[in-house]
């Protein structure tokens, strides 16, 4: 399965990683292509360029593991098995959306897939993941909880409060930081001390932590597997920082190198480290997967994405009455 010995995972796993990344990419590229039609009328935070983190981590999770995310959540939702059609319908504001159209791109959910929800207040869902892990501990359940967040989230108080509590109770929560160097258009240098790696914050809390290449899907996956093993063994929370890069603008479909907050060379360097292209090459060269296999898989994905958009576009908008429903859950048990 891993004949060359160079790669760390089986060809099967590598293929699955590819499929997940390529699917996320295609979905978001389709959003890029069609956002200008002005039928997706909500903010979208695309993760093109960062797919390896979502894919590598979620591939290490089991059915009863559950995740939360933030504003940039499409990749996490899809990697965890979230329903693509329901996601696209949500972005289109349709009744068939995963949140009935009430949430939009920033409020995805798929309980069946273990995607507990994403909300766009930076840092806001980290504590929730810790709460999910607390619930598991109190109930003696085995699933682990995962929070995905960006490099700005480590600046929030709730991040630290959550880590302290998780460490104190040795909760089975995996904290995944996607460090893409920017918070909106603000580089790390204006937000965090020079020379202090993000991973040091987690270590300060006494938490097992590592910093890795977030554009290498296999490396991400292997690190996540180790983390999950340690979490299941009851060894307390694990923090993983992944270096990666967002290709498109912070919010919206466009490239934004013209506005000048990041250097073209930096951008080019990261483009050349595309997590999908490098992984594809590895599949062909190291895992000896046939080009045709990939081609078929890509075609499948393209078709699935087309279908999902068609589904979303053809779905009905929620009727006016829907505005006034689901404000409160069932009045009592």
């Amino acid at each position, binding site marked *: 399965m891993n004949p060359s010995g160079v790669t760390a995972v089986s060809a099967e796993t590598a293929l699955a990683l590819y499929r997940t990344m390529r699917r996320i990419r295609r979905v978001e590229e389709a959003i890029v292509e069609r956002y200008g039609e002005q039928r997706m009328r909500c903010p979208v935070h695309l993760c093109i360029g960062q797919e390896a983190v979502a894919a590598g981590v979620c591939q290490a999770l089991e059915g009863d593991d*559950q995740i*939360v995310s933030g504003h940039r959540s499409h990749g996490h939702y899809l990697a965890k098995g979230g329903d693509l059609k329901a996601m696209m319908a949500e972005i289109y504001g349709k009744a068939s*959306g*995963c*949140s*009935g*159209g*009430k*949430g939009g791109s920033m*409020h995805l*959910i798929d*309980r069946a897939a273990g995607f*507990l*929800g994403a*909300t766009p*207040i930076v840092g*806001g*869902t*980290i*504590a*929730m*993941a*810790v*709460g*999910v*892990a*607390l*619930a*598991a501990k*109190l*109930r003696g359940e085995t699933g682990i*909880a995962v929070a995905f967040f960006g490099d700005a989230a480590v600046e929030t*108080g*709730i991040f630290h*409060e*959550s880590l*302290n*509590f998780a460490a*104190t109770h040795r909760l089975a929560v995996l904290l995944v930081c996607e460090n893409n160097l920017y918070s909106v258009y603000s580089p790390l240098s204006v937000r965090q001390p020079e020379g202090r790696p993000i991973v040091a914050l987690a270590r300060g809390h006494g938490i097992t932590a590592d910093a890795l290449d977030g554009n290498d899907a296999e490396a991400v996956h292997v690190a996540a597997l180790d983390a999950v093993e340690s979490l299941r063994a009851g060894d307390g929370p694990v923090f993983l920082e992944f270096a990666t890069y967002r290709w498109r603008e912070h919010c919206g479909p466009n490239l934004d190198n013209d506005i000048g907050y990041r250097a073209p060379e930096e951008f080019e360097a990261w483009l050349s480290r595309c997590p999908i292209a490098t992984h594809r090459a590895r599949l062909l060269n190291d895992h000896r997967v046939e080009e045709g296999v990939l081609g078929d898989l890509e075609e499948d994905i393209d078709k699935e994405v087309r279908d999902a958009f068609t589904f979303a576009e053809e779905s009905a908008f929620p009727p006016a009455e829907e505005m006034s*429903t*689901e*404000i*409160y*859950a*069932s*009045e*009592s*048990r």
Partner: protein
Amino acid sequence: MSRVITYAEAICEATDQCLAADANVYLMGLGVPDPKGVFGTTLGLKERHGARVMDMPTSENAMTGVAIGAAIVGMRPILTHQRLDFALLSIEQLVNQAAKFHYMFGGEASVPLVVRMVIGRGWGQGPQHSQSLQAWFAHVPGLKVVMPATAYDAKGLLIAAVEDDNPVIYLEHRWLHGTKGEVPEEPYRVPIGEARRLREGEDITLVGISYMTIEAMRAAEVLAGHGISAEVIDLRSLRPFDAETVIASVRRTGRLLVADTGGVTGGFGGEIVSQIVERAFDRLICPPRRIGLPDIPTPTSPALARHYYPRAGDIVTAVMEMLDRGPVAMPPADGPLDVPDPGFTGPF
């Protein structure tokens, strides 16, 4: 079987029964398992329920998020704050997240969470240990807000809150913890959203919120001595709020006075007055009045605090004016004005 117990004991008993009835209920808060047990409201619970009764770090914001996370997956957390003022650190989680979770995910998730907050008063609690910001929570769709004034309601509303599938803000006034009342031993529910008429009357409707219900009852007693028959309604819930009961009463009496523990300006009294005006305008004999805190942070010195808080006498005075009657002498308040009862000797 009913006994007379304190409001604090009623809270403790309700919590105990909820913990016993449902393994998903857990209780967390600063000092919950400590020897003082949050003003006696959590005493013995740790011993009886073990891991589901927890202390916490001074991390009000994250602990609210933790409770939300646990609630989403089916736990029913009760989170306590020894002062509402401390809970302000968790507003983002309460208002952006808990209140909206059910709606913004199209009903896919719900947050059965109870957040207890104590409203401080007296003995120099001062500006940062005494705020009564129920108006804020009552302004937020997705939250429910209850403010029991009696031991009976303290228990019944807490059980109802824990069993409710929504985030419920449960506000307890520090001066109520030691008050006593008949409380059934067995679990029971007081429906959220129902006001209660504590006293019937003809001339005016006094709506009391939390501790001010006690002062309103005192005022009604004094007014009765002057031949004025005041109806007293204990609002109990602010969101949803029982407009029907208040309106029905005011339609009969033609007069309304709201006595609130919070600030008047922008307070919940304005909501009650507005709804009454919108829906019973033709029956109003005189403009409704609101009694509550002035537009001033809480002063600490007892010499100032005694002028800060409205009391039964202020209600009586206002009612006499509303009825075009001359001023009456109130029996002077006996004892110090900055303690709930003579047994209280500080410091907290």
